[in-house]
């Protein structure tokens, strides 16, 4: 009886969250798979469509853009992840940690700016850094004074810029995680290593990096997933032009947003479904390996 009541109370507290999760997560996951098995498009409308089985998936396999976009995605995810989300994040964490707090703190605060700046404003800044001469900042500061040729950077080096734009946001995530991991290394170990005659670089290699194994794994798993599916900044910067059409953006373009107004819901959903499956698998792995131990603690309050 008591237990029954408790179950009910819990569910009442959860109810609004449960409804929203069902409507905006569960149903959409099932629908994505469902729509991907139909030929629904703006031609068929929402009523004249029919089931087509795995035709959309076969179409993906045969589509001339599949390989190109797949490789673009792979390149984009791996390069951004390695050099920025992990590499640069680690570099900044170590450097700011080495400096005294106020200066290190200033740089850490500056590195959060890209993340909190509204996406459109942030991309506006980058496109002005990269703009054609005489307006662009890169051209004015680093090319013209040295007599180097100027260029319109975004079309010319589009891939580099989508990596930069996303990488500068991603680096701060790694920075925060790594910083707090480095700070949690006992001070005695850090100091005694130097007393024993280790150089700063030896300390990084033998004391700091080994402590970061777990946070590194966490950042890699977590950020792979977000990089794989985030296309907002790419859409604002290049809209997929100049061979920067990553998989998630491709799916979005096909189903919801393109110049011709021919929305291929079925095909787009099939493209998205690939990511949904990858996302779910990685999400489960993520849950299994990180933090799950922290959840298992039982509420004590109910045994009064």
């Amino acid at each position, binding site marked *: 009886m008591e237990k029954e009541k408790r179950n009910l109370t819990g569910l009442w507290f*959860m109810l609004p969250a449960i409804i929203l999760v069902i409507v905006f997560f569960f149903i*959409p996951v099932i*629908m994505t798979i469902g729509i991907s098995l139909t030929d629904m498009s703006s031609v068929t409308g929402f009523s004249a469509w029919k089931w087509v089985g795995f035709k959309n998936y076969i179409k993906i396999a045969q589509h001339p853009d599949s390989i190109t976009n797949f490789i673009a995605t792979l390149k984009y995810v791996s390069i951004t992840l390695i050099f920025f989300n992990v590499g640069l994040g680690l570099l*900044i964490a170590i450097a700011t940690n080495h400096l005294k707090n106020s200066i290190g703190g200033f740089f850490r605060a500056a*590195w959060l700016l890209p993340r909190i700046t509204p996406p459109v404003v942030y991309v506006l800044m980058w496109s002005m850094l990269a703009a054609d001469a005489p307006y662009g900042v890169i051209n004015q500061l680093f090319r013209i004074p040295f007599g180097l040729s100027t260029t319109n950077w975004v079309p010319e080096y589009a891939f580099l810029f989508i990596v930069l734009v996303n990488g500068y946001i991603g680096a701060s995530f790694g920075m925060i995680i790594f910083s707090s991991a480095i700070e949690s290394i006992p001070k005695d170990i850090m100091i005694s290593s130097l007393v024993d005659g280790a150089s700063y670089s030896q300390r990084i290699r033998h004391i700091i990096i080994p402590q970061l194994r777990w946070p590194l794994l966490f950042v890699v798993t977590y950020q792979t997933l*977000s990089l794989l599916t985030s296309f907002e900044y790419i859409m604002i910067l290049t809209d997929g032009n100049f061979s920067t059409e990553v998989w998630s953006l491709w799916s979005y373009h096909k189903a919801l947003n393109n110049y011709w107004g021919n929305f291929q819901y079925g095909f787009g959903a099939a493209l998205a479904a690939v990511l949904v499956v990858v996302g779910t698998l990685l999400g489960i792995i993520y849950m299994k390996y990180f933090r799950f131990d922290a959840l298992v603690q039982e509420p004590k309050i109910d045994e009064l």
Partner: protein
Amino acid sequence: MKLKRDNFTLLSVLTLIIFTAPIILGYLWLFISTFSERTYGLKPVDVDGNLGGFTLKNWAFLAEPDIWLITLNTFLLATFLTMGVLLISSLAGYALSRVNFRGRKTFLSMTLILHAFPSVTLLIAIYFVLRFISDIPLLGALFGYNTIGGVVLISIALQLPLGIWLMKGFFDGVSWDLERAALIDGCSRWRCWWQIMVPQIKPGLAALSIFSFMTGWSSFLIPYTFLTKGNKAVLSTYLNAMMSSDTVSIQYGILAAIGLFQLIPILLFYSFTQKYLMKIFSGGSHGGV
């Protein structure tokens, strides 16, 4: 504060300056060109290309009634998102932290999976869900396709995994004795939640509300996708439409001014609440990268 003078310190400072340069330069450009006729790099110039050209005319957009309507929309979106996320996540977070109900563990692991789950991949299906809601009388007018309500609802849902997780963490930190005493005295779970527990986690609520407000105020993709009068819906979409318009020759000063207009509240919040936000971001910010 004095720095140690050794090569490694020098190297650290140098590395940081080089890598932080794009962020600083980007911000500098935004501030400078807001008040300039035009800019060559960071140098403000007048129409003939000579140094100078200080002007306030980039801010003329503030005189148009449209911009205030757009700002109001953005503000409403951010405010309702914040209220929704706070209410729903503090309810769910409390139950997950303190009530031993059946299915609790399932919900907990589900929250974690959803937290990592890339929700943007669901936009296509969510479009269909919204279309469906539109056909329901009354509800459709409030939360259907092409309504601010619909955009708010989606944004709340996508923010929930993070919100619930954070709230649960804060509730976990409240002493058991306090609640137990209240319950023994005959307080109901609901009153206990509202009168005893919620006041205990005010810092958590503050952090989550600031984070949610900033997310709503900045949000681009969801309003852009689900509001058909896209370009005039919220500040982000308005600025984006101006940036990508092919017809009018783009005036960067005006773009910068609108950008700064959108950025000011964010920077104000950020300067006061940096510490809190660092905590939330390490809890894993969702979306973006």
